[in-house]
């Protein structure tokens, strides 16, 4: 199974305020979007991020060929436990996930 980054054009992650993290998967084409939409399981993303599926928000945006995932930040931005002030590195983790 290929990694997401081999299918999607770009994956980025960023804070959406200090309490949320958002991941944008730019698929680049409708074919790639369809593969990501169906092949990237929400449960698998939640497991990779060690976050409950119930609080994960997912938007499959066909017009933009984008899958967007937002989660409450695992550690609130800037707390002692936080390792990534801008939430930038989670993108790599998601990009390296295998998709079906």
């Amino acid at each position: 199974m290929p990694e997401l980054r081999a299918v999607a054009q770009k994956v980025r992650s960023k804070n959406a305020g200090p309490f949320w993290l958002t991941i944008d998967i730019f698929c680049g084409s409708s074919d790639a979007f369809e593969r990501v939409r169906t092949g990237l399981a929400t449960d698998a993303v939640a497991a990779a991020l060690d976050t409950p599926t119930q609080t994960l928000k997912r938007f499959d945006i066909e017009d933009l060929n984008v899958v967007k995932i937002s989660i409450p930040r695992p550690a609130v931005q800037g707390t002692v436990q936080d390792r990534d002030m801008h939430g930038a590195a989670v993108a790599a983790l998601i990009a390296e996930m295998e998709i079906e």
Partner: protein
Amino acid sequence: MVRVLVPSGALGLGWDQEALERGIRNKPDLIAIDGGSTDSGPSYLGRGVSKYARSSTKLEWAGLIDAAQRAGCPLVIGTAGTCGADSAVDWLVDITREILRENGQTAKLAVLKSNQPTERVLAALGSGDLRPLTPAPDVDDERIESCTNIVALAGIEQITQALETGADIIIAGRTTDTAIIAALPISQGIDPGLAWHAAKIGECGALCATNPQSGVLQIDWEDGAFTLTPLADDANATPHTVSAHMLYENSDPFLLHEPGGTLDVRNSKYTAVDDKRVNVSGSVWQTANEYTVKLEGARVAGYQTVVLALLRDPRYVENAQDWADDIVARCTAKALARTSAQKDDFSIEIRLIGKNAVLGALEAKSANPTEIGALGMVTARTAELAGEIGKLLNPYLLHHPLTQEEEQPTFAFPFSPAEIDRGPIYEFCLNHVMVLDDPMDAFSLEVVDA
């Protein structure tokens, strides 16, 4: 028609000067720029200071004061000095006075402040007017009282009042990123849905276009729509770049909560005017039943001392996690034995740079790096204790062996002293909105000649 010129995503990031000149010639009704956000972390709000260098801020702000004078329009900045706390507003007011004095000029300034007195927030908590967002930390009186700064995010009502003073320059404390752009068109009768939507896309300047670092973006509202024009030669907006910008730093790309209501862009239409410009219509504003402003607060969460050591010996690189775990256990025991600290007074952590420092337990890959940086972090209730335990940690990071049998190893310290006192560290401690009877109840507006 209403025209707002946005020179850049934030003061301190710069812009394409040729594009700014074009914007000035196009005679905007307002030049609006954002001065900050929470994005760089809680320390700036906690301390009430700017992230950007004073020299850069002064140079760029002088450029915008000049631009507004030549365009013949007012200039507004929101979230002055990164965090928008009163002290950061005062800092930018001071810079403004200095610029005007050096240029032999005078100007009328409107200064909007957003800091919240502790008593106001405590009263809101007591009366049920402090409402948690999701996810929100638990708050009580002690938590609110411990904040070094609490700011409320102003919306269009407060910015409109500031604009209506007729000031040449409006320096605002914490505002929503969008309010400084949306206020003028709404006060001129433009549909609020279109005003807020354009503001959301425009608040980062040309980030909604190609060549995002060119900065300069022009927004025109006319005939039930708005048009976005990035003004640098090589910057182009397309329906894709513009609509994709709604994803940026938003947890929900379709609904955006603002003071007094919610922007809904689910039915917005994005149309290319030509290769450079995009026209948007169909955005809807839903007015809320009550007027709320979001609060941000930061407080001291402890004091930190860090020590960095570098492992290059392959055996230590390979066994770095065991080595680090052993050091944390031994140093914790030593700190308990040799200082008056109790278990809850401090924590010791070693992050292995090159292994999993950024993702921690989430890291799914295992690599075999050439070297590893061992970042020792001591967090404690007082600066003295953090410094003291940092000194206890130092010899471990320099010499701790994997086994008792081997010769004492030495690792690389990149500098002396190896301990770095980081001083107080802060945490965000509010994710709440406060209900207001009148939008100005939580803000102060002052007009001064400078």
